[in-house]
C-alpha cells in the first residue's frame, strides 16, 4: 500500500523503534486492525444470534399434544446443541481454528482464512452465549411467565414478549464482555494465516528482529480498541437504565 508517511530514520530507543515500525508498516497495522475488528464484530454478532437460538431451544418445553415427530425433533435439537456447547467450551479456540480451517480445506471447501476466522469466532461465541442466555432466561422469575401463560399467551409469545427482553437486558454486560474477549482472542487466528493484528506484529517484528517493539505497538492498539469499546458499552448501559421517576397520569386522577 503506498502510504506517504514520514519514516523516522535511525531509531535508537524503544519508543523510536515503535514509532519507526508503526509508520513504516502503517498499512499493515491498519489492515490488521480492520481484520481484527471485522472478525470480532461479525463473529460476535453472529455468535450472539446462535447463542440466543440455542438458549431458546434448550428452554423448549414439550407439551403432551406435540406430534411424535415434533417431539423427536426437539429432542434431537437439544442433544445436538448440548453436544456442540460442550465441544466448544472444552477445547481451546486456537485448536478449534486449526481443525475448522484445515478440516474444511481437506474437504475441498475453498474457505478463506478470514471466513474461517469468523466461523471459529462465531462457533466459540455461540457456545458461551448459549449458556449465558440460558442463565439469563432462568433469571426471570417463573411467576412472570405464568402470568402471561395464565391469560392465554402461547409459550413462544411469552418467551418473545416477556422473558427475552428482560433476559437480554440482564446479560448485556456479559455480552459486552464477550465482545472484548473476542477482540483479543482473534489474535490466535494468526495460526490459520489471518492477516490480523498479531500476524502483522509477527511479520513486522521479523523484518527487523524487533519483536518487543513490534508487539508493543499492537498491545497499544488492542488496549485503545478495548478501552474505547468498553467506555462505549458503559455509556450505552447507563442509557438503558430505568429512571426512578414516572409521570402521574393526572388526566385520570379522580377529583372527588
Amino acid at each position, binding site marked *: 500500500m503506498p502510504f506517504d508517511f514520514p519514516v523516522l530514520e535511525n531509531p535508537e530507543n524503544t519508543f523510536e523503534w515503535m514509532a519507526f515500525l508503526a509508520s513504516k508498516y502503517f498499512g499493515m497495522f491498519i489492515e490488521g486492525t480492520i481484520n481484527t475488528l471485522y472478525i470480532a464484530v461479525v463473529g460476535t454478532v453472529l455468535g450472539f444470534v446462535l447463542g440466543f437460538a440455542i438458549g431458546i431451544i434448550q428452554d423448549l418445553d414439550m407439551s403432551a399434544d406435540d406430534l411424535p415427530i415434533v417431539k423427536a425433533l426437539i429432542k434431537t435439537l437439544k442433544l445436538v446443541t448440548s453436544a456442540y456447547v460442550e465441544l466448544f467450551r472444552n477445547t481451546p479456540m486456537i485448536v478449534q481454528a486449526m481443525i475448522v480451517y484445515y478440516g474444511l480445506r481437506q474437504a475441498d471447501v475453498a474457505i478463506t482464512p478470514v471466513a474461517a476466522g469468523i466461523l471459529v469466532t462465531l462457533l466459540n461465541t455461540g457456545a458461551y452465549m448459549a449458556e449465558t442466555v440460558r442463565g439469563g432466561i432462568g433469571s426471570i422469575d417463573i411467576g412472570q411467565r405464568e*402470568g402471561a401463560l395464565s391469560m392465554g399467551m402461547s409459550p413462544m409469545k411469552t418467551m418473545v414478549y416477556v422473558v427475552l427482553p428482560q433476559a437480554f437486558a440482564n446479560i448485556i454486560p456479559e455480552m459486552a464482555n464477550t465482545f472484548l474477549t473476542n477482540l483479543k482472542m482473534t489474535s490466535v487466528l494468526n495460526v490459520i494465516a489471518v492477516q490480523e493484528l498479531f500476524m502483522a506484529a509477527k511479520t513486522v517484528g521479523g523484518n527487523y528482529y524487533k519483536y518487543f517493539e513490534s508487539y508493543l505497538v499492537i498491545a497499544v492498539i488492542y488496549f485503545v480498541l478495548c478501552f474505547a469499546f468498553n467506555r462505549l458499552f458503559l455509556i450505552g448501559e447507563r442509557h438503558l437504565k430505568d429512571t426512578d421517576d414516572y409521570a402521574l397520569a*393526572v388526566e385520570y386522577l379522580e377529583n372527588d
Partner: protein
Amino acid sequence: MEKAILSIQGLSKSFGNHEVLRKIDLDVQKGEIICIVGSSGSGKSTLLRCINRLERQTSGKIFYHDKEVRDIQREVNEYRSKVGMVFQSFNLFSNMTVLENCMLCTRKVLHLPKEEAFDRAIAHLKEVGMAPFINAKPAQLSGGQKQRVAIARSLCMNPEILLFDEPTSALDPEMVGEVLAVMQNLVETGLTMIVVTHEMAFARDVSTRTIFMDRGFVVEDAPPSQLFTNPKSPRTREFLSRYLAG
C-alpha cells in the same frame, strides 16, 4: 339447576408419591363466587393451578361449557383467555409499565386494535383505581397497587371465570383491605370467581359458596351461612374455630 360452565370431575394430582388432590369433583355455575378455604398444604392452590392448566392433573377431567379441556396448546391458550388467574405474587411483567401490562395480552392474544386495547385497559384500571399510574413500572408500586393492576390486567381479557390464588396473602393488613374492596366490586359485575383465601370474613360475607379443603379432599361444600355457623364436619369445625376464635 342451570348447567355448569366449569365442571371438574375426579381430578387427582400427585407430585411424586405425594397426593395433593384426591378425586375432586366440582361444578361451577355462572355468577358463583366460590371461596376455597383450608390450611396450607391442603391442595387449594394446586386445584386452582390445575384449573388454569399451569399444572397437569394426574387423572380426572375438566370440562368448560361441556367441552373437555384437552392438553392441546392452542386449545389451552384459548381456554386460558376465558379463565384468567390472579396470583399471590402478582406476577406483573416487570419490564413493562402498568399500561403495557394491561395491553400486552389483549393485543397479542385477542389481537385487539391498539385503541380498543387502550380503552379497555384504562376502563379496567379506573375500576381498580390505578388509572393515574399507567406510566409506572411494577417495581414503583406498593403490593396492594400491584395486585390491583394484576386484577385489571386479567379483567382486560374479559374472562368468564377469574381464579384468585391467595390474592392478599403477600400484603399487609391495610393493603388487604384495598384489594378485597376491588374484589367486592367485581362481585357486583356478575363475574364468576373462584377465590382461594385465608380471609374468612371475605369468604363469609362475599362468597355464594364456601369450600373447605383438607389433605387434598373437599371436606365440605356449602353456602357460607351454613359452613361458618353450622359446619357438618368436625375437621371444618376445628379449622374454623382457630380462625374465628382469634
